[in-house]
């Protein structure tokens, strides 16, 4: 089960370094300034401050400018790392932010009364509704939402300071989208605490591959899958995982990827065929006849699906194992 990590596991954890630095910034916003002083020209700063109606949430120009600079440097103004953003690129980046929502989030994080009033008026109901939607139960949803509220309100403390996750909101997406993301993460954490085992157990139907193929071949298959997957594009891998492991529908996947359902279907088909071909090749290389190899994987498309799922699942191993290893 514990396979030495192939390429797939070597993928760099997402923005690990960014994350730690950004967390540091999040905690100590006030201290964070661009290395060569102000990045934000005063004129632009004032204009954006006005556009964000930051005054309504008791946010001073300086505070708002700081927020903008922090966010800009954190994401390198949307450029690839290592590139230096020029003034124009910075301005474009800032102007594209959800300024008003950003100001509100900052105001809330800094404990400003009017910011909270606005936030509650605008998002409380939506937040609860989203939570109910995610949990599928009114009670659970309300519980989730109120837990998040207290967290947002800064009841948790870090290094002796009141700390609100709202500090992390960058304004690049909508505030509601960010709230949904937080809620979803909290919800997943709940899963992890309670129902993970059973959930994995659900994907245990007829795993014929294992039955028919010898142990050695199974090892080969796992390696083959990892090899194939590592060569596949990120999107293909995501689609395969979401479809075979999580059993999401094509429609659901298409919504996440913001493409048409047919596009997802095409991608999935191509990825699956590719994977299957690679697996057949591996099996035959391991000594099976073509027919035996095909039989082993299953000729019925549904069998193939199930077997692929099983294989993917096994080769993926524990989703958290990679992380744990790296930690």
């Amino acid at each position, binding site marked *: 089960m514990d396979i030495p990590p192939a390429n*797939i*596991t070597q*993928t760099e*954890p*997402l*923005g690990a370094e960014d*994350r*730690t630095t*950004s*967390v540091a910034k999040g905690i100590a916003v006030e201290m964070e300034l661009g290395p060569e002083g102000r990045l934000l020209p005063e004129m632009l700063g004032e204009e954006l401050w006005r556009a964000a109606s930051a005054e309504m949430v008791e946010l001073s120009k300086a505070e708002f400018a700081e927020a903008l600079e922090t966010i800009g440097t954190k994401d390198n103004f*949307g*450029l*690839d790392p290592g590139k230096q953003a020029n003034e124009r690129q910075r301005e474009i980046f800032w102007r594209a932010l959800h300024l008003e929502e950003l100001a509100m989030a900052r105001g809330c994080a800094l404990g400003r009364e009017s910011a909270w009033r606005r936030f509650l008026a605008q998002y409380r109901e939506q937040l609860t509704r*989203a939570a109910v*939607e995610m949990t*599928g139960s009114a009670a659970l949803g309300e519980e989730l939402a109120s837990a998040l509220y207290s*967290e947002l309100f800064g009841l948790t403390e870090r290094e002796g300071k009141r700390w609100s*996750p709202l500090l*992390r*909101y*960058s304004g*690049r*997406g*909508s505030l509601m*989208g*960010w*709230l*949904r*993301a*937080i*809620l*979803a*993460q*909290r919800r*997943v*954490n709940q*899963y*992890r*605490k309670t129902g993970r085992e059973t959930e994995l157990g659900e994907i245990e139907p007829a795993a014929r591959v294992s039955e028919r193929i010898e142990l050695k071949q199974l090892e080969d298959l796992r390696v083959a899958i990892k090899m194939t997957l590592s060569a596949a594009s*990120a*999107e293909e*891998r*995501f689609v395969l*995982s*979401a479809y075979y492991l*999580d059993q*999401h*529908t094509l*429609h*659901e996947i298409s*919504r*996440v990827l*913001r493409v048409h359902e047919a596009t997802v279907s095409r991608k999935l088909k191509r990825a699956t065929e590719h994977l299957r071909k690679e697996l057949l090749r591996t099996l035959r290389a391991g000594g099976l006849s073509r027919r035996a190899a095909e039989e082993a994987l299953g000729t019925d498309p549904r069998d193939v699906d199930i077997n692929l799922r099983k294989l993917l699942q096994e080769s*993926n191993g524990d*989703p*958290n194992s*990679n*992380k744990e290893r*790296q*930690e």
Partner: protein
Amino acid sequence: MNQEFQTGIHPDADQLSVFVEGAATSREQERMLLHLAECAECRKAVFLMQPQEETQPAGRTPVKGWIWGRLLPVGLPAAALACGLVAVLVHIWPRDGALRNPQQVASLRKPEVLPKTTVAPSADSEMDQRSGTPRSFAPATNRSRQENLSLPKSLNLPESSGQAAAKVAAPETTRANLSANVPVAHAGGSAGGVIGGISSELPLNGRNFSNLQQLSTPEPAKAAASQYSLAKEKDLGGLMIEQASGHDKTLAEVSGHITDRSGAIVAGAAVMLRDASGTTRETTTGVDGSFHLTELPAGRYELTATASGFKTSKQSIELNPSQLAMLQPVLEPGAASEQVTVETASAAVQVETESANVGQVIAGQVVAEMPNVGRAVGVPSGLPVTASVSHGKRFISLDNAGNLFLSRSGGKKWKKINPQWTGKAVRIELTPAHSSEAPPKPNETSGKASEAAVFLLTTDAGTVWTSKDGAHWHQQ
């Protein structure tokens, strides 16, 4: 636990939301997908983040149906309304140019039995001078009926401020002498009082003063100019609608004053405005003959003006929101009949007095077989017919753009007659052949009939053309 999830190697909420909302850069997108491909938890979070439809796909269809079900009662009438609106627009649009008051042209063929009286001048001409682009509408629905009745009413609808001026101008302007076959050369009235200094030798009936200004300098026979003048005249409708300011933008107003043909004001006349649903608004004219109705919802109305001793005047108007319609109905004396019905031994005979040369009007034709002179016959141009004469099955119609149409089939099929004349045809008449013999029997064949009768055409340049068959014309 939460902290670890947040600050660990997983993307934070901000990155997730940026990804889900499609705001991520391509690099971020790629990294996110790579992570998601491996990380079941973040995948789960991402799918959880999708709004309702995602988590409860089963709810979709009923919701959809419910929405449709709820929209249906609203949607259907709305759609019907829209269709109706389109139909009305289509109805009005092509005639827009033509609708500019057929009455003015109709007055060209008023029977000369009527005394030469003054007619309220086209104050709209002033208006045309002052405001660059007047918007005028003329009734579309009752037009044909009015023509049929040949109610020779002249509608003059000045813009509101022009109303007073119109009244002042009224007595000073005489109607053109229509009996003349050479209208342009025929001196009409004096327009000078109104437009100051322009003493025109031109007929004023329905003419546009601003154009008279043009015409006063060139010689009367200048065909092009007069054509222009005539064309402009069509633009000045009997109904002038202008934007009313300072009122509710959805409501319209109607005001105007009622005169008789001599231009004298008619006080105490009942004015009734009836909308499409039959709701009426009534008022009477004041001592100055004016009336005013406000807060009228936009739409199509029929305006009826009644006064004792006069015929009832009817016209339909289209009111647009926040417009002020200025109307000037002219009442005809009740005594002056448009039609003379003569009882003969065999049948009722109707004499059409529509033709200008009343004295020569064919008399004694049987009503049943009398071709519908003056009837609004649909001509191919789609424009209102201003004059129509017939002989046997041979119909000639003149629309208000000056096009002449000939039908040999009693109005079923029409053919445009290519003008051999210069200028624009303004009048079409039928006279008996040079002899003053009795006209041919209507049931005679057209071939025979054409020998006996002559069509007379007058152009706005004053030339007269004759034709026996309607297709071939000769200048007189």
